Protein backbone atom coordinates (compact mmCIF):
# COMPACT_ATOMS: atom_id res chain seq x y z
CA UNK A 1 0.00 0.00 0.00
CA UNK A 2 1.73 3.16 1.19
CA UNK A 3 5.48 2.98 1.18
CA UNK A 4 7.56 5.66 2.78
CA UNK A 5 11.28 5.87 2.19
CA UNK A 6 13.92 8.40 3.11
CA UNK A 7 16.16 9.56 0.28
CA UNK A 8 18.75 12.18 1.20
CA UNK A 9 16.71 15.30 1.96
CA UNK A 10 13.51 13.86 0.56
CA UNK A 11 10.75 11.84 2.06
CA UNK A 12 9.37 9.75 -0.78
CA UNK A 13 5.85 8.47 -0.37
CA UNK A 14 4.67 5.83 -2.82
CA UNK A 15 1.01 4.98 -3.13
CA UNK A 16 0.28 2.36 -5.77
CA UNK A 17 1.97 3.76 -8.87
CA UNK A 18 1.95 7.37 -7.67
CA UNK A 19 4.93 9.05 -6.06
CA UNK A 20 4.92 12.07 -3.74
CA UNK A 21 8.06 13.81 -2.62
CA UNK A 22 8.29 15.92 0.49
CA UNK A 23 11.51 17.80 1.14
CA UNK A 24 12.47 17.51 4.78
CA UNK A 25 15.20 20.06 4.69
CA UNK A 26 14.40 22.79 7.24
CA UNK A 27 14.15 25.54 4.67
CA UNK A 28 11.12 23.83 3.14
CA UNK A 29 9.29 23.64 6.44
CA UNK A 30 7.93 27.09 5.79
CA UNK A 31 5.26 25.46 3.70
CA UNK A 32 2.06 27.36 4.57
CA UNK A 33 0.12 24.11 4.44
CA UNK A 34 1.92 22.98 7.59
CA UNK A 35 0.94 26.19 9.36
CA UNK A 36 -2.69 25.85 8.28
CA UNK A 37 -2.66 22.22 9.43
CA UNK A 38 -1.35 23.36 12.82
CA UNK A 39 -4.07 25.97 13.09
CA UNK A 40 -6.69 23.42 12.08
CA UNK A 41 -5.55 21.07 14.85
CA UNK A 42 -5.72 23.79 17.49
CA UNK A 43 -9.52 23.82 18.08
CA UNK A 44 -9.52 20.05 18.61
CA UNK A 45 -7.55 20.57 21.84
CA UNK A 46 -10.17 23.00 23.12
CA UNK A 47 -13.32 20.90 22.62
CA UNK A 48 -15.64 21.53 25.53
CA UNK A 49 -13.95 24.81 26.44
CA UNK A 50 -16.17 27.41 24.79
CA UNK A 51 -14.10 30.38 26.00
CA UNK A 52 -10.90 29.08 24.39
CA UNK A 53 -12.74 28.13 21.19
CA UNK A 54 -14.18 31.61 20.93
CA UNK A 55 -10.67 32.96 21.53
CA UNK A 56 -9.40 31.04 18.49
CA UNK A 57 -12.36 32.31 16.47
CA UNK A 58 -11.63 35.89 17.54
CA UNK A 59 -8.00 35.48 16.51
CA UNK A 60 -9.12 34.20 13.11
CA UNK A 61 -11.47 37.17 12.74
CA UNK A 62 -8.66 39.62 13.59
CA UNK A 63 -6.36 37.91 11.10
CA UNK A 64 -9.09 37.93 8.45
CA UNK A 65 -9.36 41.72 8.84
CA UNK A 66 -5.62 42.30 9.05
CA UNK A 67 -4.69 40.27 5.95
CA UNK A 68 -6.68 42.36 3.44
CA UNK A 69 -5.79 45.51 5.39
CA UNK A 70 -2.09 44.76 4.95
CA UNK A 71 -2.54 44.58 1.19
CA UNK A 72 -4.70 47.70 1.20
CA UNK A 73 -2.06 49.71 3.04
CA UNK A 74 0.51 48.53 0.51
CA UNK A 75 -1.70 49.10 -2.51
CA UNK A 76 -2.88 52.60 -1.73
CA UNK A 77 0.28 53.65 0.08
CA UNK A 78 -1.73 55.20 2.89
CA UNK A 79 -2.62 54.15 6.36
CA UNK A 80 -6.29 53.30 6.71
CA UNK A 81 -7.34 54.10 10.24
CA UNK A 82 -10.92 52.99 9.82
CA UNK A 83 -11.08 49.42 8.52
CA UNK A 84 -13.72 48.78 11.14
CA UNK A 85 -16.10 51.07 9.23
CA UNK A 86 -16.56 48.31 6.66
CA UNK A 87 -16.70 45.72 9.41
CA UNK A 88 -19.59 47.65 10.93
CA UNK A 89 -21.18 48.08 7.53
CA UNK A 90 -21.10 44.34 6.82
CA UNK A 91 -22.22 43.44 10.33
CA UNK A 92 -25.10 45.88 10.44
CA UNK A 93 -26.29 44.98 6.91
CA UNK A 94 -26.33 41.27 7.77
CA UNK A 95 -27.82 41.94 11.19
CA UNK A 96 -30.59 44.25 9.99
CA UNK A 97 -31.72 41.94 7.20
CA UNK A 98 -31.43 38.84 9.32
CA UNK A 99 -33.18 40.17 12.41
CA UNK A 100 -35.97 42.08 10.63
CA UNK A 101 -36.62 39.83 7.61
CA UNK A 102 -35.29 36.58 9.09
CA UNK A 103 -32.90 35.93 6.22
CA UNK A 104 -30.32 33.21 6.73
CA UNK A 105 -26.55 33.83 6.48
CA UNK A 106 -26.38 32.72 2.85
CA UNK A 107 -29.13 35.13 1.90
CA UNK A 108 -27.46 38.09 3.60
CA UNK A 109 -23.98 37.41 2.17
CA UNK A 110 -24.68 38.72 -1.37
CA UNK A 111 -26.33 41.83 0.09
CA UNK A 112 -23.31 42.44 2.33
CA UNK A 113 -20.96 42.09 -0.65
CA UNK A 114 -23.11 44.50 -2.65
CA UNK A 115 -23.28 47.07 0.14
CA UNK A 116 -19.51 46.76 0.71
CA UNK A 117 -18.95 47.25 -3.01
CA UNK A 118 -21.19 50.32 -3.21
CA UNK A 119 -19.69 52.03 -0.15
CA UNK A 120 -16.20 51.02 -1.24
CA UNK A 121 -16.80 52.66 -4.60
CA UNK A 122 -18.31 55.79 -3.05
CA UNK A 123 -15.34 56.22 -0.70
CA UNK A 124 -12.67 55.05 -3.16
CA UNK A 125 -12.05 58.50 -4.75
CA UNK A 126 -10.59 59.44 -1.35
CA UNK A 127 -7.56 57.27 -2.13
CA UNK A 128 -6.51 59.77 -4.79
CA UNK A 129 -8.26 62.91 -3.56
CA UNK A 130 -7.21 62.93 0.07
CA UNK A 131 -3.49 63.56 -0.09
CA UNK A 132 -1.22 61.82 2.37
CA UNK A 133 -2.43 61.95 5.90
CA UNK A 134 -5.79 63.49 5.02
CA UNK A 135 -6.79 59.96 4.12
CA UNK A 136 -5.74 58.59 7.50
CA UNK A 137 -7.65 61.34 9.28
CA UNK A 138 -10.86 60.90 7.31
CA UNK A 139 -10.80 57.14 7.68
CA UNK A 140 -10.18 57.65 11.40
CA UNK A 141 -13.34 59.72 11.72
CA UNK A 142 -15.64 57.61 9.50
CA UNK A 143 -16.34 54.77 11.96
CA UNK A 144 -16.79 57.23 14.83
CA UNK A 145 -19.46 59.07 12.87
CA UNK A 146 -21.05 55.75 11.91
CA UNK A 147 -21.19 54.90 15.60
CA UNK A 148 -23.07 58.12 16.27
CA UNK A 149 -25.49 57.37 13.44
CA UNK A 150 -26.21 53.97 15.01
CA UNK A 151 -27.12 55.74 18.24
CA UNK A 152 -29.40 58.14 16.42
CA UNK A 153 -31.51 55.80 14.29
CA UNK A 154 -33.60 53.45 16.35
CA UNK A 155 -33.40 50.58 13.82
CA UNK A 156 -29.77 50.05 14.85
CA UNK A 157 -30.93 49.73 18.48
CA UNK A 158 -28.14 51.88 19.89
CA UNK A 159 -25.81 50.43 22.49
CA UNK A 160 -27.79 47.22 22.91
CA UNK A 161 -27.18 46.39 19.27
CA UNK A 162 -29.10 44.07 17.00
CA UNK A 163 -29.99 40.67 18.37
CA UNK A 164 -31.73 37.56 17.09
CA UNK A 165 -29.47 37.30 14.05
CA UNK A 166 -29.76 33.81 12.60
CA UNK A 167 -26.71 31.65 13.36
CA UNK A 168 -24.26 30.47 10.72
CA UNK A 169 -24.73 26.82 11.43
CA UNK A 170 -27.43 25.31 13.58
CA UNK A 171 -26.65 21.91 14.96
CA UNK A 172 -28.32 20.37 17.99
CA UNK A 173 -25.14 20.04 20.05
CA UNK A 174 -23.75 23.37 21.27
CA UNK A 175 -20.20 21.98 21.43
CA UNK A 176 -20.38 20.89 17.78
CA UNK A 177 -21.82 24.27 16.79
CA UNK A 178 -18.96 26.14 18.47
CA UNK A 179 -16.38 23.87 16.88
CA UNK A 180 -17.95 24.27 13.45
CA UNK A 181 -18.10 28.05 13.82
CA UNK A 182 -14.43 28.02 14.80
CA UNK A 183 -13.54 26.03 11.68
CA UNK A 184 -15.72 28.32 9.61
CA UNK A 185 -13.69 31.33 10.79
CA UNK A 186 -10.49 29.43 9.99
CA UNK A 187 -11.74 28.61 6.49
CA UNK A 188 -12.67 32.26 5.92
CA UNK A 189 -9.23 33.37 7.11
CA UNK A 190 -7.43 30.78 4.98
CA UNK A 191 -9.43 31.77 1.89
CA UNK A 192 -8.45 35.41 2.46
CA UNK A 193 -4.85 34.35 3.04
CA UNK A 194 -4.82 32.35 -0.18
CA UNK A 195 -6.44 35.10 -2.25
CA UNK A 196 -4.20 37.86 -0.92
CA UNK A 197 -1.11 35.68 -1.22
CA UNK A 198 -1.98 34.89 -4.84
CA UNK A 199 -2.60 38.57 -5.55
CA UNK A 200 0.62 39.67 -3.84
CA UNK A 201 2.72 37.20 -5.82
CA UNK A 202 0.94 37.95 -9.11
CA UNK A 203 1.39 40.85 -11.52
CA UNK A 204 -1.16 42.87 -9.60
CA UNK A 205 0.96 42.44 -6.47
CA UNK A 206 3.92 43.92 -8.32
CA UNK A 207 1.71 46.85 -9.41
CA UNK A 208 0.69 47.59 -5.86
CA UNK A 209 4.26 47.25 -4.67
CA UNK A 210 5.33 49.68 -7.38
CA UNK A 211 2.65 52.18 -6.34
CA UNK A 212 3.78 51.79 -2.75
CA UNK A 213 7.45 52.28 -3.60
CA UNK A 214 7.12 55.32 -5.84
CA UNK A 215 3.88 56.59 -7.30
CA UNK A 216 5.51 58.88 -9.82
CA UNK A 217 7.83 56.26 -11.25
CA UNK A 218 4.97 53.74 -11.41
CA UNK A 219 2.84 56.31 -13.23
CA UNK A 220 5.64 57.10 -15.69
CA UNK A 221 5.95 53.41 -16.48
CA UNK A 222 2.36 53.44 -17.66
CA UNK A 223 0.51 52.23 -14.60
CA UNK A 224 -2.94 53.68 -14.03
CA UNK A 225 -2.39 54.50 -10.39
CA UNK A 226 -5.86 55.86 -9.65
CA UNK A 227 -7.57 52.80 -11.09
CA UNK A 228 -5.39 50.31 -9.23
CA UNK A 229 -5.79 52.18 -5.97
CA UNK A 230 -9.57 52.06 -6.39
CA UNK A 231 -9.49 48.34 -7.22
CA UNK A 232 -7.32 47.64 -4.18
CA UNK A 233 -9.46 49.73 -1.85
CA UNK A 234 -12.78 48.30 -3.05
CA UNK A 235 -11.69 44.65 -3.02
CA UNK A 236 -10.21 44.84 0.46
CA UNK A 237 -13.20 46.79 1.77
CA UNK A 238 -15.57 44.11 0.54
CA UNK A 239 -13.39 41.47 2.21
CA UNK A 240 -13.55 43.33 5.52
CA UNK A 241 -17.33 43.70 5.14
CA UNK A 242 -17.54 39.91 4.73
CA UNK A 243 -15.73 39.54 8.06
CA UNK A 244 -18.44 41.81 9.54
CA UNK A 245 -21.06 39.47 8.06
CA UNK A 246 -19.33 36.53 9.73
CA UNK A 247 -19.08 38.31 13.08
CA UNK A 248 -22.80 39.21 13.04
CA UNK A 249 -23.91 35.66 12.28
CA UNK A 250 -21.33 34.07 14.58
CA UNK A 251 -22.15 36.09 17.69
CA UNK A 252 -25.88 36.31 16.91
CA UNK A 253 -25.79 39.96 17.99
CA UNK A 254 -24.08 42.99 16.52
CA UNK A 255 -23.45 46.25 18.33
CA UNK A 256 -21.42 49.07 16.87
CA UNK A 257 -20.10 49.93 20.31
CA UNK A 258 -18.00 46.71 20.25
CA UNK A 259 -16.55 47.03 16.77
CA UNK A 260 -16.54 50.70 15.84
CA UNK A 261 -14.60 52.55 18.59
CA UNK A 262 -10.94 53.51 18.33
CA UNK A 263 -9.85 50.79 20.75
CA UNK A 264 -10.99 48.02 18.38
CA UNK A 265 -9.25 49.66 15.44
CA UNK A 266 -6.07 49.94 17.47
CA UNK A 267 -6.14 46.20 18.04
CA UNK A 268 -6.43 45.51 14.31
CA UNK A 269 -3.72 48.03 13.51
CA UNK A 270 -1.46 46.45 16.09
CA UNK A 271 -2.11 43.01 14.62
CA UNK A 272 -0.80 44.42 11.35
CA UNK A 273 2.12 46.29 12.93
CA UNK A 274 3.22 43.61 15.38
CA UNK A 275 2.74 40.81 12.87
CA UNK A 276 4.88 42.67 10.38
CA UNK A 277 3.62 45.23 7.93
CA UNK A 278 2.94 44.38 4.32
CA UNK A 279 3.18 40.69 4.97
CA UNK A 280 0.31 38.27 4.70
CA UNK A 281 1.50 35.59 7.13
CA UNK A 282 2.58 38.07 9.78
CA UNK A 283 -1.04 39.04 10.39
CA UNK A 284 -1.80 35.54 11.69
CA UNK A 285 1.07 35.62 14.19
CA UNK A 286 -0.01 39.10 15.22
CA UNK A 287 -3.67 38.13 15.63
CA UNK A 288 -2.98 35.06 17.78
CA UNK A 289 -0.43 37.00 19.81
CA UNK A 290 -2.75 39.94 20.53
CA UNK A 291 -5.69 37.67 21.43
CA UNK A 292 -3.53 35.49 23.67
CA UNK A 293 -2.01 38.51 25.39
CA UNK A 294 -5.45 39.98 26.00
CA UNK A 295 -6.67 36.71 27.51
CA UNK A 296 -3.62 36.23 29.74
CA UNK A 297 -3.88 39.79 31.05
CA UNK A 298 -7.46 39.34 32.23
CA UNK A 299 -6.02 37.80 35.42
CA UNK A 300 -4.91 41.31 36.38
CA UNK A 301 -8.50 42.52 36.68
CA UNK A 302 -9.31 46.07 35.60
CA UNK A 303 -5.63 47.02 35.47
CA UNK A 304 -5.33 44.96 32.27
CA UNK A 305 -6.91 47.83 30.31
CA UNK A 306 -3.80 49.86 31.12
CA UNK A 307 -1.22 47.05 30.92
CA UNK A 308 -2.43 45.72 27.54
CA UNK A 309 -1.74 48.90 25.53
CA UNK A 310 1.44 49.44 27.56
CA UNK A 311 2.86 46.05 26.52
CA UNK A 312 1.88 46.66 22.90
CA UNK A 313 3.55 50.05 23.07
CA UNK A 314 6.78 48.50 24.37
CA UNK A 315 6.61 45.88 21.60
CA UNK A 316 6.12 48.59 19.00
CA UNK A 317 9.21 50.38 20.34
CA UNK A 318 11.40 47.31 20.58
CA UNK A 319 10.24 45.30 17.53
CA UNK A 320 9.71 47.85 14.78
CA UNK A 321 9.50 45.16 12.12
CA UNK A 322 7.06 43.04 14.05
CA UNK A 323 7.27 39.42 15.14
CA UNK A 324 7.55 38.19 11.57
CA UNK A 325 10.29 40.74 11.00
CA UNK A 326 12.67 38.79 13.23
CA UNK A 327 12.25 35.82 10.92
CA UNK A 328 12.36 37.94 7.79
CA UNK A 329 15.77 39.29 8.69
CA UNK A 330 17.15 35.85 7.83
CA UNK A 331 15.38 35.81 4.49
CA UNK A 332 16.25 39.27 3.29
CA UNK A 333 16.46 38.25 -0.37
CA UNK A 334 12.73 37.79 -0.72
CA UNK A 335 11.01 40.94 -1.86
CA UNK A 336 8.33 42.24 0.41
CA UNK A 337 7.03 45.72 -0.11
CA UNK A 338 7.53 47.80 2.98
CA UNK A 339 4.80 50.27 3.75
CA UNK A 340 5.75 53.89 3.48
CA UNK A 341 3.18 56.41 4.42
CA UNK A 342 3.82 59.76 2.86
CA UNK A 343 2.93 63.23 3.96
CA UNK A 344 2.13 64.53 0.50
Amino acid sequence: MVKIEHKRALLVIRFRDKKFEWPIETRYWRNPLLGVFGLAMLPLFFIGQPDLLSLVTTANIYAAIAIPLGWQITGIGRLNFGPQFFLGLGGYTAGLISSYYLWGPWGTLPVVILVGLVFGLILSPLTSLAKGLYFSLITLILPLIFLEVTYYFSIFQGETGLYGILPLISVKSITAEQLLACYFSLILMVIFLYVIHKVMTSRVGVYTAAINDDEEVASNLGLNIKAWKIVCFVVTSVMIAIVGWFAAHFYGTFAGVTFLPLSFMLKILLVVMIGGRGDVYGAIYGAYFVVLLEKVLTVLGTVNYIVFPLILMILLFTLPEGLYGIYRKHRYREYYPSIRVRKR
Partner: protein
Amino acid sequence: MELIKTILIYAVLLGSLYLLISLGFSLICGVLGIFNLGYGITFVVAVYGMWFLMHTCGFGLFPAIAGVFVLQFLFTLGIIYYPIVKRYMEQEDFLLTSLLLVSLIVEELVNHVYPITAGVDIPTTILPGTLEVGGSTIPFQMLFIVVFAVLITAFFLFFLLKTRLGLKIQAVSQNHDAAQLMGVKVERVYIVSMILAVVPPTICMIVIAPVWSIEPTMGESLLQTAILVTILGGLGNLRGTTIASFIVGLISSSIAFLVNPRLVNVAILICVFLVLLFKPEGITKSESLW
Protein backbone atom coordinates in the same frame (compact mmCIF):
# COMPACT_ATOMS: atom_id res chain seq x y z
CA MET B 1 -36.67 85.47 13.24
CA GLU B 2 -36.29 84.37 16.82
CA LEU B 3 -34.93 81.03 15.64
CA ILE B 4 -32.38 82.64 13.33
CA LYS B 5 -31.20 84.82 16.20
CA THR B 6 -30.78 81.78 18.46
CA ILE B 7 -28.95 79.87 15.74
CA LEU B 8 -26.57 82.78 15.16
CA ILE B 9 -25.87 83.21 18.87
CA TYR B 10 -25.11 79.54 19.22
CA ALA B 11 -23.00 79.65 16.06
CA VAL B 12 -20.77 82.25 17.71
CA LEU B 13 -20.66 80.35 21.01
CA LEU B 14 -19.90 76.99 19.42
CA GLY B 15 -17.54 78.58 16.91
CA SER B 16 -15.47 80.07 19.75
CA LEU B 17 -15.48 76.74 21.54
CA TYR B 18 -14.35 74.91 18.40
CA LEU B 19 -11.67 77.52 17.86
CA LEU B 20 -10.26 76.92 21.33
CA ILE B 21 -10.45 73.16 20.79
CA SER B 22 -8.69 73.13 17.43
CA LEU B 23 -6.16 75.98 17.66
CA GLY B 24 -3.42 73.84 19.22
CA PHE B 25 -3.97 70.93 16.85
CA SER B 26 -3.77 73.25 13.88
CA LEU B 27 -0.57 74.88 15.16
CA ILE B 28 1.16 71.50 15.48
CA CYS B 29 -0.06 70.53 12.00
CA GLY B 30 1.39 73.71 10.57
CA VAL B 31 4.74 73.78 12.33
CA LEU B 32 5.66 70.14 12.88
CA GLY B 33 3.76 68.84 9.85
CA ILE B 34 2.32 65.93 11.83
CA PHE B 35 -1.04 64.96 13.22
CA ASN B 36 -0.90 64.90 16.96
CA LEU B 37 -3.42 62.19 17.71
CA GLY B 38 -2.39 62.47 21.35
CA TYR B 39 -4.03 65.90 21.35
CA GLY B 40 -7.35 64.53 22.64
CA ILE B 41 -5.69 63.43 25.84
CA THR B 42 -4.53 66.97 26.71
CA PHE B 43 -8.17 67.82 27.49
CA VAL B 44 -8.37 64.88 29.87
CA VAL B 45 -5.04 65.78 31.49
CA ALA B 46 -6.27 69.37 31.95
CA VAL B 47 -9.44 68.42 33.83
CA TYR B 48 -8.21 65.41 35.76
CA GLY B 49 -4.81 67.01 36.44
CA MET B 50 -6.66 69.92 38.03
CA TRP B 51 -8.84 67.55 40.04
CA PHE B 52 -5.74 65.58 41.10
CA LEU B 53 -4.00 68.75 42.30
CA MET B 54 -7.04 70.10 44.12
CA HIS B 55 -8.58 66.94 45.50
CA THR B 56 -5.62 64.62 46.08
CA CYS B 57 -2.78 67.10 46.68
CA GLY B 58 -4.95 69.70 48.41
CA PHE B 59 -3.94 72.71 46.27
CA GLY B 60 -6.02 75.87 46.25
CA LEU B 61 -7.77 77.02 43.06
CA PHE B 62 -5.11 79.38 41.70
CA PRO B 63 -2.09 77.20 42.59
CA ALA B 64 -3.95 74.32 40.94
CA ILE B 65 -4.50 76.32 37.73
CA ALA B 66 -0.79 77.17 37.65
CA GLY B 67 0.05 73.57 38.50
CA VAL B 68 -2.09 72.16 35.72
CA PHE B 69 -0.17 74.21 33.15
CA VAL B 70 3.12 72.86 34.48
CA LEU B 71 1.65 69.36 34.39
CA GLN B 72 0.55 69.85 30.78
CA PHE B 73 3.97 71.11 29.71
CA LEU B 74 5.68 68.17 31.41
CA PHE B 75 3.20 65.74 29.86
CA THR B 76 3.44 67.10 26.34
CA LEU B 77 7.24 67.23 26.36
CA GLY B 78 8.01 64.22 28.52
CA ILE B 79 5.47 61.77 27.13
CA ILE B 80 4.39 63.07 23.72
CA TYR B 81 7.33 64.98 22.24
CA TYR B 82 10.59 63.37 23.33
CA PRO B 83 9.70 59.66 23.38
CA ILE B 84 7.31 59.60 20.38
CA VAL B 85 7.15 62.65 18.12
CA LYS B 86 10.89 63.23 17.98
CA ARG B 87 11.59 59.56 17.49
CA TYR B 88 9.02 58.82 14.79
CA MET B 89 8.89 62.16 12.99
CA GLU B 90 9.45 60.50 9.61
CA GLN B 91 7.56 57.27 10.27
CA GLU B 92 3.97 58.38 10.25
CA ASP B 93 2.41 54.98 10.84
CA PHE B 94 4.43 54.41 14.01
CA LEU B 95 3.85 57.98 15.09
CA LEU B 96 0.07 57.82 14.81
CA THR B 97 -0.23 54.35 16.34
CA SER B 98 1.96 55.16 19.32
CA LEU B 99 0.20 58.48 19.91
CA LEU B 100 -3.14 56.68 19.92
CA LEU B 101 -1.71 54.05 22.25
CA VAL B 102 -0.45 56.68 24.68
CA SER B 103 -3.89 58.30 24.61
CA LEU B 104 -5.48 54.96 25.38
CA ILE B 105 -3.06 54.24 28.23
CA VAL B 106 -3.60 57.64 29.87
CA GLU B 107 -7.35 57.42 29.33
CA GLU B 108 -7.54 54.01 30.98
CA LEU B 109 -5.25 55.15 33.79
CA VAL B 110 -7.51 58.12 34.50
CA ASN B 111 -10.55 55.87 34.26
CA HIS B 112 -8.96 53.51 36.77
CA VAL B 113 -8.03 56.18 39.30
CA TYR B 114 -11.02 58.50 38.82
CA PRO B 115 -13.90 56.52 37.31
CA ILE B 116 -16.96 58.39 36.17
CA THR B 117 -18.51 57.76 39.59
CA ALA B 118 -15.72 59.76 41.29
CA GLY B 119 -17.80 62.91 40.79
CA VAL B 120 -15.10 65.18 39.39
CA ASP B 121 -16.14 68.78 39.87
CA ILE B 122 -13.91 71.72 38.96
CA PRO B 123 -14.98 74.91 40.81
CA THR B 124 -13.92 77.40 38.14
CA THR B 125 -17.27 79.12 37.70
CA ILE B 126 -16.43 82.76 36.99
CA LEU B 127 -19.98 84.06 37.00
CA PRO B 128 -22.89 81.82 38.00
CA GLY B 129 -26.34 82.10 36.45
CA THR B 130 -27.74 82.21 32.96
CA LEU B 131 -28.59 84.78 30.32
CA GLU B 132 -31.87 84.88 28.40
CA VAL B 133 -31.29 85.86 24.79
CA GLY B 134 -33.99 85.51 22.17
CA GLY B 135 -35.79 82.68 23.89
CA SER B 136 -32.69 80.64 24.63
CA THR B 137 -30.86 80.25 27.92
CA ILE B 138 -27.09 80.52 27.89
CA PRO B 139 -24.89 80.02 30.96
CA PHE B 140 -22.63 83.03 31.62
CA GLN B 141 -19.74 80.62 31.66
CA MET B 142 -20.26 79.97 27.93
CA LEU B 143 -19.90 83.70 27.23
CA PHE B 144 -16.45 83.58 28.79
CA ILE B 145 -15.53 80.97 26.16
CA VAL B 146 -16.04 83.68 23.53
CA VAL B 147 -13.92 86.13 25.53
CA PHE B 148 -11.10 83.62 25.99
CA ALA B 149 -11.26 82.51 22.36
CA VAL B 150 -10.78 86.12 21.22
CA LEU B 151 -8.00 86.74 23.77
CA ILE B 152 -6.06 83.58 22.94
CA THR B 153 -6.37 84.04 19.18
CA ALA B 154 -5.17 87.63 19.61
CA PHE B 155 -2.27 86.43 21.73
CA PHE B 156 -1.35 83.76 19.15
CA LEU B 157 -1.49 86.31 16.34
CA PHE B 158 0.60 88.84 18.24
CA PHE B 159 3.09 86.18 19.20
CA LEU B 160 3.38 84.66 15.74
CA LEU B 161 3.36 87.87 13.71
CA LYS B 162 5.21 90.33 15.94
CA THR B 163 7.76 88.52 18.08
CA ARG B 164 11.09 87.16 16.91
CA LEU B 165 10.34 83.63 18.11
CA GLY B 166 6.95 83.80 16.38
CA LEU B 167 8.62 84.73 13.11
CA LYS B 168 10.94 81.76 13.53
CA ILE B 169 7.93 79.49 14.05
CA GLN B 170 6.38 80.92 10.88
CA ALA B 171 9.62 80.36 8.99
CA VAL B 172 9.76 76.70 10.04
CA SER B 173 6.13 76.23 9.04
CA GLN B 174 6.82 77.69 5.59
CA ASN B 175 9.99 75.79 4.83
CA HIS B 176 11.67 73.62 7.38
CA ASP B 177 14.97 73.19 5.50
CA ALA B 178 15.35 76.83 4.51
CA ALA B 179 14.66 77.94 8.07
CA GLN B 180 17.31 75.56 9.35
CA LEU B 181 19.82 76.92 6.83
CA MET B 182 19.07 80.47 8.01
CA GLY B 183 20.12 79.45 11.51
CA VAL B 184 16.79 78.74 13.16
CA LYS B 185 17.12 76.07 15.82
CA VAL B 186 14.29 73.92 14.51
CA GLU B 187 14.04 71.64 17.50
CA ARG B 188 13.64 74.59 19.86
CA VAL B 189 10.83 75.87 17.64
CA TYR B 190 9.16 72.47 17.80
CA ILE B 191 9.32 72.47 21.59
CA VAL B 192 7.87 75.99 21.81
CA SER B 193 5.07 75.01 19.42
CA MET B 194 4.25 71.88 21.42
CA ILE B 195 4.08 74.00 24.58
CA LEU B 196 1.98 76.70 22.91
CA ALA B 197 -0.39 74.08 21.52
CA VAL B 198 -1.50 72.85 24.94
CA VAL B 199 -2.43 76.33 26.18
CA PRO B 200 -5.81 76.70 24.37
CA PRO B 201 -7.16 73.24 25.31
CA THR B 202 -6.13 73.74 28.94
CA ILE B 203 -7.81 77.15 29.20
CA CYS B 204 -10.82 75.81 27.31
CA MET B 205 -11.27 72.93 29.76
CA ILE B 206 -10.73 75.09 32.85
CA VAL B 207 -13.44 77.50 31.69
CA ILE B 208 -15.88 74.95 30.36
CA ALA B 209 -15.52 72.25 33.05
CA PRO B 210 -18.36 73.54 35.28
CA VAL B 211 -20.91 73.35 32.43
CA TRP B 212 -19.58 70.36 30.50
CA SER B 213 -19.92 66.62 31.04
CA ILE B 214 -16.60 65.39 32.39
CA GLU B 215 -15.57 61.81 31.69
CA PRO B 216 -12.24 60.09 30.98
CA THR B 217 -13.25 59.30 27.38
CA MET B 218 -14.17 62.85 26.40
CA GLY B 219 -10.85 63.31 24.54
CA GLU B 220 -11.98 61.25 21.55
CA SER B 221 -14.90 63.42 20.54
CA LEU B 222 -12.92 66.63 21.12
CA LEU B 223 -10.06 65.30 18.98
CA GLN B 224 -12.63 64.42 16.33
CA THR B 225 -13.87 68.02 16.30
CA ALA B 226 -10.32 69.37 16.17
CA ILE B 227 -9.48 67.12 13.22
CA LEU B 228 -12.58 68.13 11.25
CA VAL B 229 -12.08 71.84 11.84
CA THR B 230 -8.38 71.65 10.98
CA ILE B 231 -8.99 69.72 7.76
CA LEU B 232 -11.69 72.17 6.73
CA GLY B 233 -9.47 75.16 7.45
CA GLY B 234 -6.51 73.86 5.46
CA LEU B 235 -3.97 72.06 7.61
CA GLY B 236 -2.04 74.29 9.92
CA ASN B 237 -3.33 77.66 8.79
CA LEU B 238 -4.62 79.65 11.75
CA ARG B 239 -6.71 81.99 9.60
CA GLY B 240 -8.35 78.98 7.97
CA THR B 241 -8.88 77.36 11.35
CA THR B 242 -10.59 80.49 12.69
CA ILE B 243 -12.92 80.73 9.69
CA ALA B 244 -13.57 76.98 9.71
CA SER B 245 -14.42 77.02 13.45
CA PHE B 246 -17.21 79.51 12.91
CA ILE B 247 -18.45 77.72 9.77
CA VAL B 248 -18.58 74.48 11.73
CA GLY B 249 -20.24 76.37 14.60
CA LEU B 250 -22.92 77.63 12.22
CA ILE B 251 -23.47 74.17 10.75
CA SER B 252 -23.67 72.65 14.23
CA SER B 253 -26.16 75.14 15.59
CA SER B 254 -28.36 75.06 12.47
CA ILE B 255 -28.45 71.27 12.35
CA ALA B 256 -28.99 71.05 16.11
CA PHE B 257 -31.91 73.48 16.09
CA LEU B 258 -33.47 72.61 12.75
CA VAL B 259 -32.87 68.86 12.43
CA ASN B 260 -31.44 66.89 15.34
CA PRO B 261 -28.45 67.43 17.65
CA ARG B 262 -27.21 63.87 17.10
CA LEU B 263 -26.67 64.49 13.40
CA VAL B 264 -24.27 67.40 13.96
CA ASN B 265 -21.08 65.39 13.44
CA VAL B 266 -22.46 63.64 10.36
CA ALA B 267 -23.34 67.02 8.84
CA ILE B 268 -19.87 68.42 9.59
CA LEU B 269 -18.24 65.35 8.04
CA ILE B 270 -20.32 65.65 4.88
CA CYS B 271 -19.39 69.33 4.68
CA VAL B 272 -15.68 68.46 5.03
CA PHE B 273 -16.05 65.80 2.33
CA LEU B 274 -17.61 68.30 -0.07
CA VAL B 275 -14.93 70.89 0.61
CA LEU B 276 -12.21 68.29 0.07
CA LEU B 277 -13.85 67.26 -3.18
CA PHE B 278 -13.82 70.74 -4.70
CA LYS B 279 -10.99 72.35 -2.76
CA PRO B 280 -8.61 69.59 -1.64
CA GLU B 281 -6.31 72.02 0.19
CA GLY B 282 -9.08 73.27 2.50
CA ILE B 283 -10.49 76.79 2.80
CA THR B 284 -7.08 78.44 2.84
CA LYS B 285 -3.81 77.10 1.56
CA SER B 286 -1.59 75.83 4.30
CA GLU B 287 1.56 77.49 3.05
CA SER B 288 2.00 79.58 6.15
CA LEU B 289 0.54 79.95 9.58
CA TRP B 290 -1.53 83.04 8.78
